[in-house]
């Protein structure tokens, strides 16, 4: 190993290709700081930089071992170009995925209870409210209940509701309006809170 430390990059590359596996260790140790500094300067994240560094050297090893390396410049520049291509690939992949990162912001927009799963208590309240709404719907006049069920339980459009009930769309809309007014009144009369968190 000590003897290898004084060898040129070209010689170490040739030795590695010829089967001296220790030569790549010297090349890695000799150039790791420069290549890694370049990657960190671009991506500014240690772990991501390490992933790119590792992938770059794996490509280097594959290229050397498959005899596809043409010695036409500095070894470190060649590895840096491989790392550069991986960095550009990473940027383009991120761009296509349209990932919005909060890493650079103190406030995390997505770290909100609005986006979190409901707690057991919230689930129970929601279940109770839906149950009470169901009870109130049963109290509506037939034609209004019909529209509410079709719209909110069967997810039909007002056009479809109008066709199924043989009325105009305006009549269906009117029935829904009266149904909602009646539901609010019935809820108030029974002191039922229909607010979901």
């Amino acid at each position, binding site marked *: 190993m000590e003897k290898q430390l004084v060898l040129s990059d070209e010689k170490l590359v040739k030795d590695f290709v010829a089967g001296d596996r220790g030569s790549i260790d010297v090349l890695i140790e000799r150039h790791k700081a420069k290549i890694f500094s370049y990657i960190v300067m671009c991506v500014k994240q240690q772990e991501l930089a390490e992933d790119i560094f590792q992938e770059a050297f794996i490509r280097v090893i594959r290229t050397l071992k498959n005899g596809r390396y043409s010695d036409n410049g500095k070894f470190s520049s060649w590895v840096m170009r491989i790392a550069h291509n991986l960095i550009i690939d990473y940027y383009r992949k991120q761009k296509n995925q*349209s990932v919005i990162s909060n890493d650079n912001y103190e406030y995390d927009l997505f770290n909100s209870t609005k986006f979190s799963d409901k707690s057991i208590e919230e689930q129970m309240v929601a279940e109770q409210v839906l149950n009470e709404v169901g009870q109130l719907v049963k109290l509506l006049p037939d034609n209004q209940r019909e529209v509410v069920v079709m719209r909110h339980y069967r997810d039909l459009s007002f056009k479809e509701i109008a066709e199924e009930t043989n009325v105009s769309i305006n009549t269906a809309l009117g029935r829904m309006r009266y149904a909602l007014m009646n539901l609010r009144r019935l809820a108030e009369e029974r002191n039922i809170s229909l607010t979901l968190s």
Partner: protein
Amino acid sequence: MSNTSTHDYLAEEEDANYWLSVFEKMPDALFADSKVMPRAFILTKIKAFARAYEPVVVLGKESEVIMN
């Protein structure tokens, strides 16, 4: 919903191009005492891969094996 991103990837690509041109001109010796390094286990993994990797030709096609 349209895909929108607030991140300027084009500017990052331009930065990467700029830094590549700068680093290529810097002498390797400048980094001799650098403290910016990948962690040791990353280097160990790469060196282990170098020892385990062996390209082979199977039925006229290039292939590879990882020897444990």
